[in-house]
Every structure is written in C-alpha cells, then in structure tokens.
C-alpha cells in the first residue's frame, strides 16, 4: 500500500505500507508534475524488498513543500470544507 493517511494505514495494517507525507488525494504529487509522480513511485518500489513482516509501514520521506512547511494542511482542510 502506498498511502498518505498514516493513522488509517496503521489501523488497517497492510502487508507492506509505504507512507507518503503528502496531502490526501495527491499521493504522487501536484497535478501534472510527472517528475514527482515518478520519484514517489520509484521510492515506494525501492522499499519493497526491505519489508520483513506484515503490517510494517515505512516512511518514504517525501516532503510536499521544501523545508517541511506544513501550510498545506490548513489549505487542504479549507478545500475539503469548500468542496463538501
């Protein structure tokens, strides 16, 4: 599983979990960013052989914004409320 919701992934315990710290619904990057799509997928595939037990979750250390800026969390909440 390649997912953005660490809490849910921890609860459902996939056999192999790759955590991407991106906004939900943007697992492989911003729209039309093909380099980012490729980079996240390559990172996830590289982890495949490193899992040793079912339920393990490995952090792919993907940053949505450089420098660990997490302003996107508030933006996402506002977007979801707007689109609800």
């Amino acid at each position, binding site marked *: 599983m390649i997912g953005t919701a660490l809490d849910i992934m921890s*609860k*459902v315990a996939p056999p192999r979990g790759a955590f991407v710290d991106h906004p939900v619904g943007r*697992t*492989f990057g911003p729209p039309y960013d093909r380099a980012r799509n490729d980079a996240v997928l390559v990172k996830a595939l590289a982890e495949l052989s490193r899992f040793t037990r079912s339920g393990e979750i490995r952090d792919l250390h993907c940053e949505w914004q450089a420098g660990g800026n997490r302003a996107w969390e508030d933006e996402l909440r506002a977007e979801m409320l707007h689109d609800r």
Partner: protein
Amino acid sequence: MAQAGAPKPPRVLVAPSNPAWCPIKKPLSRSRVALLSSAALRLADQRPFIPREDLTYRLVPSDPLAGEIVIDHHSGIGRVPRQDPEIVFPRSALAALANRGVIGALAPFHVSFMGGLRCHKEIESEIAPAIAGDLKGAEVDVALLVPY
C-alpha cells in the same frame, strides 16, 4: 452549503482477519506490476460506479493511451485528482518504469473499486478474492494499492 441528508453510519476501520504476507519471489526488474486504486476510477466508456456501496470493480487497461480516466468516488478530495488522475493513479509513471526496465512489465490491466465501503465482510469474502483471482490469472507479481 450542502444539504444534510440522512446520517451516514459511522466509518469503521477494519484490519484483515488474516494478515497477509507473500514473499517477494522475483527481482522488480523481472516482475509484472499492477496498480489497485480505491478511487472508483475507470475509463470513460466503462460502466460507472454508483456511490456509495458499489461492490463491483473495473479492470482498467494499463496502457496510458487507452483512454481518459474518470473518477466516480464521492469523496470531498476529488476536485484536484479529477484534474489529473495520475496523482492518485500513476499509470503513466508505471509505464515509464517498464520502458526503463525498472519493473519487468506492466500487468495488462490495473484494478479499481470503491473505497470507503462499509460492507467489510463482502469485501473480504467476495471482492478481494475475485480481484486476487484476476491478478493471479494475469500472472501479476506485485500489486500496488493506492488508497484514495
């Protein structure tokens, strides 16, 4: 503002009753890879999913040129992925990895179904085994689930 409808039953997260583990048997460069998406996505000419408790799934051709992807999932996160489904369903990126030899081959199809279903029993006893059977029939070695 959206009208409030009948209250939804609470969402319950359920882990599989039998934790799955299947050893990696081949190097990635010789593996056939498929994507699994819970975005209820499909080609425009495939039968639409019907929110919210649609228990069917679609086999979506893995060729990125096979046609436009439509997302039927009802989630509030849908506006941005609908602009570019590749950000939740990296069909083109996976095809590019096959061309570069990073993976052995694409599966002939990827699989999509409706995420957020509350029929856990049917998922575990019906949908999941049926999907697994299709993947096994297509000799898929690695299935990458991307939750929506």
